[in-house]
């Protein structure tokens, strides 16, 4: 991914038409996927990614308006392959994932979904807003993270699968003590 200044890259107005049933089917999939994640069904969640998937959360930086980029072209908070995602999930299944035991309670809210044709046949780019609420323990405080996802979804015999996911968070200094949950 190249670093970019997010406000400067809106999708073209009047972009190529994606048929409504496809769009609805993609939205259904994304809502289903968010539910699987919030239900902490991590093995089932992992199955929703293609084998060649990539999952990236770049570092956001506060820059002047005319700067070349404010999403770092090199620095990442997460830069995972499917094998690495598998490591995170097998970690959560051990008795030693202290950060998530007792587990955090998360809620993923998705909105402003835009579906665009992908670069390959059977693939679609999906851009949408993300709001994640996280409650932990008995504390009255909670974490709230907003950002946007840029996914590539691929049509497979088993249904939609996520071929890539990029999560661009809005805070440059994250108000969370850790990211032990998935974005």
């Amino acid at each position, binding site marked *: 991914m190249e670093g970019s200044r997010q406000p400067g890259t809106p999708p073209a107005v009047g972009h190529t038409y994606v048929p409504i049933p496809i769009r609805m089917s993609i939205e259904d999939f994304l809502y289903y996927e968010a539910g699987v994640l919030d239900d902490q069904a991590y093995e089932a969640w992992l199955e929703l990614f293609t084998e060649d998937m990539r999952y990236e959360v770049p*570092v956001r930086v506060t820059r002047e308006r005319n700067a070349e980029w404010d999403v770092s072209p090199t620095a*990442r908070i997460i830069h995972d392959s499917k094998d690495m995602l598998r490591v995170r999930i*097998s970690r959560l299944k*051990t008795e030693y994932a202290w*950060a998530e035991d007792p587990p955090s309670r998360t809620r993923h809210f998705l909105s402003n979904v835009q579906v665009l044709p992908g670069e390959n046949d059977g693939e679609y780019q999906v851009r949408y807003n993300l709001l994640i609420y996280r409650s932990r323990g008995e504390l009255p405080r909670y974490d709230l993270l907003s950002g946007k996802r840029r996914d590539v979804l691929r049509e497979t015999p088993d249904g939609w699968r996520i071929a890539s996911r990029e999560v661009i968070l809005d805070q440059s200094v*994250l*108000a969370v*003590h850790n*990211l*032990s949950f998935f974005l």
Partner: protein
Amino acid sequence: MQPTNATGVPDFLERMRETLPEGRVPAKIFNDPNVYALERERVFSRAWAFLAHESEIPHPGDYVLRWITDNSVIVIRDEHGQIHAHLNRCTHRGNQVCKAEMGNASHFRCSYHGWTFKNTGELMGVPYYREVYKESLNRSEWGLRAVRVETYAGLVFGTLDPDAETLQEYLGGFQFYLDFFLKPGPGGTEVYGPPERWIADADWKICAENFGGDGYHTPVTHQFGFHLGFYPSSGTTHFMGYAVHMPGRGHTIGIGHTPGLPPFSGFPQEVVDGMHATLSPEQIAVFKDARMAVGTVFPNLSFLTQPFSLTPKQTGVKFCTMRLWHPRGPGQIEMFSWCLVPKDAPQSVKDELYRVYNLAFGPAGTFEQDDFENWTNLSRQNGGSTAADFDLAYFQGLDWEPLQDFPGPGHAFTPYVTEIGFRNLWGTWLNYMLTPVGQQVDRSRVPPAFHPVDAKGQP
């Protein structure tokens, strides 16, 4: 939480001077508004504070914004390549003159009344200068307030104390150990990218202590790594190695050894060659068999080199992380976490090292997640009303003898897992805390970190 003013030295700090040499530390030091206020007044006003890595500002005009406690500091390279640090505060009304966390600027123009400062800090422009000030404003007196800056091996430090000893003196021989992290070849290190930053309700001190060589926590906090098969050491050899500290200065390092590993294992060949070219025979003797090393420069800068891999049961590669535990307020920290890579290494090696670092450290790192779970819970518990009278157990190694033939400076002990360096760290901190501003911090007053028993059994 809002910072508060120091209202005096809490009783538990006075008591700590007596209890620390006995291996007891008041829990309250790890979360107390008054302790934070005193740290701001007496520690961070006088110590050398880490600001930036030179590679973050490689070109003339490049800058980053950093902190010394609650003071925003612009760290900038001028047109001649010299590095300056200025308080980010216009000298007219105090407005913030720089608002981006990194960038390039020949000058800063205040958005309030337009006073303009060169990147060297000089006041160069004042609107209506002749009409409003006549002859009364001497521009040379009203530049941005300079923060004294010195560097070591690519690290830029600043101090608010104009009378502070030099950085070389302050590091006091710890450079011998820092070189392991900072001199992987003739070109030194560079940051892979901007730091990951996040905020947690944790006291900076517990983090600085942990990275001062807390090998004791690893097999428990990070047991998942052993469990999934990530480590070249096992629980039975993990404690082996050396713990070294610089007496009276607080700097401390743990060096873990695993028997049977080849010299400099886990480093790319370029780095092994680079280390042989840059490190002294004594440094090579200390580090060639190191599985990992983790150390803290007093007060709040740490380094860790350890092996890790993207999937379990692989031969790990050794990455290096540098982290600043910035005290943001009482019981609150802002984290800056960087990955340092060897400047001379091929890009593919740098990419691989960063990727491995990324899986382990940063807010989503599989190690860091669990550390912050512990550190936030610990800080919350130690903010409780009973914490002032509650002593924590810091007994490990109280009567150990330092090694006589260790090739490096400072006091060295074996094995690696011990709390001797932490008593020196908190003794150094306490000495700052108990020395009022205006008085010289006398390092000979740092309480002893160990007191070996002599042949007659007398301490």
